[in-house]
């Protein structure tokens, strides 16, 4: 893998997002950036000055501004309409994915800016990377935007850039280097087959996955952490939910009366990814003997908007069956 680490070591970094944002005035006429702020968290960013960690709180708007700065820099590469940039891209299969994507001349760059919860747990951002790599073209190049100290997770990215390295990001997007860590076709096939089974939404299609576990063909006996309300993030009070009253086929806890379903689905998707995949130098591989189907039961899933079934589709892609899907009209 061709690693590009623009960091000079965290002891030398003095990167204040406000100052970085201010340097984005070099935007060409074709560099309008779309998208909306991600809702991954209200705070992001640990900024280091000298050897002393000085955590800086960055609100959602500032996070978005930071992403826009990187996006604007990439958009300046546009010389013949051959660069397209999206902040918080609306991917049909990803309820949570890259924060920024740049497509240019057959090379797709997906950039990740860890949220505060992702920064709190080393490696947590890799769950988002894994599901993104499964949904994006197999040779997608990944970039970590991070001002934190070097950790083991960096080996999973093609490049690691601090907040101040906006020009380096543009240069990286302009390069022709390709990721050598292509997601294996067999992994892609298995993920696609499982998605198809769940999207079909019938007992016949999902049954074989459940049967494999019962028969011991794959190991479903490993202790699993149930998906509980603490995984739902900000949402309704605990009183609005029932307690865990039954277990799904793979230990997913059944929840009811959950109006804040979107963060719950997002967290559940990432939990499923964590259980099913591990990264080998940035490319997801399947843990254990095979993929299973997870179940998360929600009473209420509101289906509004232009793509009302995206929650079901993105959950299915991650191996998560939402039974309320079975009551809809099969529009995945």
């Amino acid at each position, binding site marked *: 893998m061709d690693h590009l680490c623009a960091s000079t070591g965290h002891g030398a970094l003095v990167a204040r997002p406000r100052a970085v944002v201010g340097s984005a005035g070099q935007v060409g006429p074709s560099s309008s950036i779309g*998208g909306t702020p991600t809702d991954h968290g209200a705070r992001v960013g640990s900024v280091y000055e000298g050897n002393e960690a000085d955590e800086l709180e960055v609100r959602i708007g500032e996070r978005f501004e930071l992403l826009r700065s990187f996006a604007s820099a990439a958009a300046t590469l546009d010389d013949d309409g051959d660069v397209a940039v999206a902040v918080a891209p609306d991917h049909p299969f990803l309820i949570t994915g890259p924060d920024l994507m740049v497509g*240019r001349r057959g090379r797709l760059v997906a950039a990740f800016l860890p949220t505060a919860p992702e920064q709190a747990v080393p490696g947590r951002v890799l769950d988002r990377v894994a599901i993104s790599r499964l949904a994006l073209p197999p040779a997608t190049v990944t970039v970590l935007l991070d001002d934190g100290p070097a950790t083991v997770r960096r080996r999973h990215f093609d490049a690691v850039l601090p907040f101040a390295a906006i020009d380096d990001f543009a240069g990286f997007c302009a390069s022709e280097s390709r990721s050598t860590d292509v997601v294996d076709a067999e992994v892609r096939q298995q993920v696609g*087959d499982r998605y198809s089974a769940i999207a079909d939404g019938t007992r016949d299609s999902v049954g074989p996955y459940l049967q494999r576990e019962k028969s011991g063909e794959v190991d479903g006996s490993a202790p699993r952490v149930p998906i509980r309300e603490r995984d739902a993030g900000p949402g309704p009070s605990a009183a609005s939910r029932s307690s865990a009253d039954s277990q799904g086929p793979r230990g997913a806890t059944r929840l009811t009366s959950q109006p804040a379903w979107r963060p719950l689905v997002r967290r559940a998707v990432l939990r499923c990814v964590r259980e099913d995949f591990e990264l080998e130098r940035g490319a997801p591989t399947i843990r254990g003997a095979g993929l299973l189907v997870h179940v998360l039961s929600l009473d209420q899933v509101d289906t509004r908007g232009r793509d009302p079934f995206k929650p079901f589709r993105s959950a299915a892609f991650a191996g998560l069956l939402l039974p309320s899907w079975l009551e809809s009209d099969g529009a995945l």
Partner: protein
Amino acid sequence: MRNVSSRTRALLVLVNGSPLAEEPEIHAIRKEIKDISDAGLAGHRRRTLLQAFHTARTLDTSLVVFIRSKGLGPKPRSLRESLQRLGTRQRRDVAALNPGHRDAYVNQIVHPRNDLMHNAGATLSQDEANKLLVRMEACLVEVLRL
């Protein structure tokens, strides 16, 4: 490129970052995707027709070019044939659409698209149009990850 929906922008980034970008048809594909957004300015009836039209052409051409760039056989003559081709695993380094899902795409995309395009006076409600559009988008995105 302002006033482009986040979904349309994501499609544009994905095709630009895919093997399609190295084929001569990429300019036409990009133009079709931009026209999907422009169609949003028209009145309801024309908007749904135009969006379906441009999205269908984007999908048709993209699948044909993908099949050629991956060496998956001769040029398909229809969207149904493209989907059939992509539903058969031909190369170890290229995954295939699951056959069940391929058939679902045929039923959910090819049939309603043909009904819309080949029948005078045919139109779609906003709900029907949305379903058709997002299925075509999902199909394109799923193919690009194969």
